[in-house]
């Protein structure tokens, strides 16, 4: 393997990982605060991708301007959907048995996935990339696909943004307190249920952003929600449930892992996330970054 090829693969794998991170960090954040594993996170991501497709068609997309509009408009739409879901449904199952929580979110998967099919049909769709992101860029004499480099740049911005939000703002310290000591937080006069709602909205916002980025990267179809949610599970388990830093590490491991294992193993590389997930759960169930269960 030449060094150029190695770098090419690395960039590709890392950009896949970054995309995964944007989606999985939402799942992880929501689990951390709400203690609910949201199966429907993948469906929300898929809705984001399809809404992006529709808006892009509406705006005769393909320009930089329309793509920016997608990035600015679609994630908030998902956050609003998230608001209604949290207030009407999720709120009722906090603190209940895991089974009921999982099944509630699974019911949403069934409903949302089918709604997507009814609204958009089963054909594969995509969003035209703006011209500036369509070609390839020269990095050290290598022609890299611009869009992958773009995704690779967005990932760290989101990671930094989340870090800043969680560790440098008052809202962030409230969220972190809600993870560790929800009761104490409530006793201190913080409206915990509003913290939960806004965290859930933030999670959905991230799912929406992941959806937009995916729609311009590859074809989207009805299977992407189910496919992605299991990958996100793997990421979140590897990094540690509820840890955003862990989600970043987990995403990059899985993204680059799949890309590099494809060389010797071909399609078998897709087994890698599940094998790693099972291994981590057996050896270190709280993940690489998480803490053992309280």
């Amino acid at each position, binding site marked *: 393997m030449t060094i150029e090829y190695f770098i090419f693969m690395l960039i590709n794998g890392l950009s896949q990982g970054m995309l995964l991170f944007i989606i999985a960090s939402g799942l992880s954040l929501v689990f951390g605060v709400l203690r609910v*594993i949201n199966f429907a996170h993948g469906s929300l991501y898929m809705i984001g991708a399809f809404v992006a497709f529709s808006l892009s068609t509406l705006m005769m997309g393909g320009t930089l301007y329309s793509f920016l509009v997608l990035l600015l408009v679609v994630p908030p739409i998902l956050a609003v959907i998230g608001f209604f879901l949290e207030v009407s449904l999720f709120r009722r199952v906090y603190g209940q048995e895991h*089974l009921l929580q999982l099944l509630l979110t699974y*019911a949403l998967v069934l409903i949302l996935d089918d709604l997507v099919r009814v609204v958009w049909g089963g054909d594969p769709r995509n969003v035209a990339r703006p011209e500036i992101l369509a070609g390839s860029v020269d990095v050290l004499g290598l022609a890299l696909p611009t869009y992958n480099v773009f995704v690779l740049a967005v990932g760290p911005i989101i990671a930094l943004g989340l870090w800043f939000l969680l560790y440098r703002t008052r809202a962030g310290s409230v969220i972190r307190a809600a993870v560790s000591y929800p009761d104490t937080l409530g006793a201190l006069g913080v409206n915990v249920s509003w913290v939960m709602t806004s965290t859930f909205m933030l999670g959905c916002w991230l799912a929406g952003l992941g959806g937009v980025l995916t729609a311009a990267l590859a074809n989207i179809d009805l299977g992407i929600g189910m496919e992605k949610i299991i990958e996100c599970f793997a990421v979140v388990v590897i990094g540690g449930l509820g840890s955003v830093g862990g989600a970043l590490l987990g995403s990059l491991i899985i993204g680059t892992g799949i890309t590099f294992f494809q060389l010797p193993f071909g399609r078998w590389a897709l*087994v890698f996330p599940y094998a790693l997930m099972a291994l981590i759960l057996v050896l270190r169930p709280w993940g690489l970054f998480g803490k053992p269960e309280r």
Partner: protein
Amino acid sequence: MEKSPSNNNMRWVMGIVVAVALFVLPFVLARLGRTGEYWIWVTTEMIIMALFAMSLNLILGFGGMVSFGHAAFFGAGAYTVALLMKKAGWPIYLALPAAPVVAAITAVVIGWFCVRRLGLYFAILTLAFSQLLYMVIFQWYTFTGGDDGIHGIPRPEFLTAINYYLLCLILFLICFVIMRMIVNSSFGLSIRTIRENLERAKFIGINVRRYQLINFTIAGAFAGLAGGLLTLLNRFAQTEFLHWSKSAEPILASLVGGMYSLVGPVIGSTVLMFLKIILQQLHRSMVEMWAIVLGLILLVVVLFAPGGMVELYERVFGKSES
């Protein structure tokens, strides 16, 4: 769990009446021509899926272990029958019993790791292992046919639609009786003790992990039998049998029917399948809406009746258990 004798006798009479009716059913249906044939096929599938749901409930309802990977054992049984009959040319009387055996072996291996984890982690680990198995079967084209599955599995001539229905029914009843004996045995009571209070179960000397592993394996074996039976009904096995959405089906059936009884999942599974077919018959486009309907049913059950139909029945008729 004390039952008055008359109540208990009533149950036996009810059970025997239902069983006799089920034995007569295919002969009645056979007189109805093509729709009858279709319904024999559907009821056979209902019996098989009821067995699958019942098997999961051994760990879910009685053991309190939420497994999101039960399809792994269903699929293991299905592929065992498919591979042995199609590729190795085994006769049915050897291939079908092999299904629960292979499924049980798979369950011992997977379960050995899984019972070391509790609650949510147990659920995710079962999911991880079943997805692992799913991916292996999906990718291993030369052996399992990948996403094409295995088609054209021979079924002996004497197993006509009616005979196959009867075979499934008899096996189902045998399994039902066995599971009833398991649930009411001292082993079954220990399993329920673990569900109710894990710490106390440990304290009184129950080897929690071993009991859970045995229970997990038994459940896996029954699921494997169900998988093998479905393969023979359809004459094909496909990767979908192992997909995680297949693992959700018996959970939904158990939840809708009621988790804390043996018949609950049977009722739940049958009602859901029946409803799906009725909707299909009502309007073709309703097929598309099925997942939405199922999701809404599930939402209602989760939010308003987490005990399922059995509990609703008991609540309405005042026959509270425990």
